[in-house]
């Protein structure tokens, strides 16, 4: 069942500044890019917004660049862009791994990193990577730019600190030292929503982030601390299983998610040792 389309409005800015003015003056408006999430809502009749700012054409937001020893990834970079970028593959291979797991190639060609962040699904495939990499979300409005640490970006289930007049313009990734690791366990091998997704960095200060085990993507500081202070993987695993708060839903059970999260933690630890 499609949503009624009679009252929908599409604004088409030609520049980022024009888009920002539209967000300020003609809001509430919803930014739209590849539409891989948004059009699902339109086609299934659950679309709530009525006015959209189409920023797919704003190529200036598509750049993937080196920033000091880290990365700056434009919000409109698609998963295919991330997957093919030598810079991403070299500096943030876990993002390339995550991009490969998003939908099928068709979705990878249209879905954007910024969209994955803005959509705020706890199952977003790239989000644990950004959390583990301690990315900064670069938000811009007509009033200027601000950088929000990824860990402070989500305030609850599908809610963020973004203001209605702001756009995500980029994700900045500080240099990541240590081995990176990513794994997604989905309802199927491809084109699937995750049941558990994990990204982790093996460093003196291990960083571990998980998706689909709570209302937002989560870091697990107690587990990280335990590993940093030399706890055994079995101890860390028990801490992790207590630290995450998965639920039963139509895709899987809380018990399964907890157990697989523990198993994946052990895999991470073994494979990066």
């Amino acid at each position, binding site marked *: 069942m499609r949503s009624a389309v*009679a009252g*929908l409005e*599409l604004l088409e800015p030609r520049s980022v500044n024009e888009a920002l003015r539209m967000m300020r003056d003609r809001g509430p408006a919803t930014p739209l890019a590849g539409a891989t999430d948004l059009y*699902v809502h339109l086609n299934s009749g659950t679309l709530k917004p009525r006015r959209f700012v189409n920023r797919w054409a704003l190529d200036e937001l598509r750049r993937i660049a080196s920033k000091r020893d880290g990365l700056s990834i434009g919000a409109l970079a698609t998963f295919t862009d991330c997957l093919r970028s030598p810079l991403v593959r070299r500096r943030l291979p876990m993002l390339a791994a995550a991009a490969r797991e998003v939908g*099928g190639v*068709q979705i990878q060609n249209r879905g954007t990193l910024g969209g994955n962040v803005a959509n705020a699904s706890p199952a977003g495939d790239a989000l644990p990577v950004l959390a583990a990499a301690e990315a900064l979300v670069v938000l811009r409005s007509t009033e200027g730019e601000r950088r929000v640490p990824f860990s402070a970006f989500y305030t609850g289930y599908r809610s963020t600190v973004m203001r209605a007049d702001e756009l995500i313009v980029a994700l900045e990734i500080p240099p990541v030292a240590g081995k990176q690791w990513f794994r997604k366990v989905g309802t199927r091998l*491809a*084109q699937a929503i995750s049941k558990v997704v994990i990204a982790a960095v093996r460093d003196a200060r291990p960083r571990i982030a998980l998706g689909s085990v709570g209302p937002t993507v989560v870091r697990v500081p107690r587990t990280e601390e335990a590993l940093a202070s030399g706890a055994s993987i079995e101890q860390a695993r028990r801490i992790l299983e207590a630290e995450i708060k998965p639920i039963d839903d139509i895709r899987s059970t809380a018990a399964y998610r907890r157990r697989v999260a523990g198993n994946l933690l052990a895999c991470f630890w073994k494979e990066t040792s």
Partner: protein
Amino acid sequence: MKNGEQRIEFTLNGDKTSVTFPTFKTLLEVLREELNLTGTKHGCELGECGACAVLVDGKPVLSCLMLAVEADGTKVTTVEGLADDARLHPLQEAFADCGAAQCGYCTPGFLCTAKALLDKKPDANRREISEALAGNICRCTGYIQIFEAVEQAAAKMAVKK
């Protein structure tokens, strides 16, 4: 052009095309309803089955999740544009020969997606093929003959070069 309508110009299967349509139509709807190219199919409209896959600037995308507006200025190829005049594309020949098109409903989406793969990676192996086609669903063939067809086409194209 009425209120709530858009007009775009793009290259469709090699031909300069302009078309006017209600703003919120998807590329899939505009192809099928405005341009009478019904080869591209509706399967789920939620981006989950790949039946509507077409090539935009050579890349496979799901036309059910793309506003037609965004095709402005692009090159779009649908299943109707794969053949070179009357000569079938090697993938089309192989799909027909190998029995890869059973009911045939998912075939156009598979063909477009496979073409993008072979354009980029002419020697794709079985694993790469299944990876590339992972966003497409077929309920009849069991996929085996689809994989074989892509492999056969790749072999044929390699010989031609």
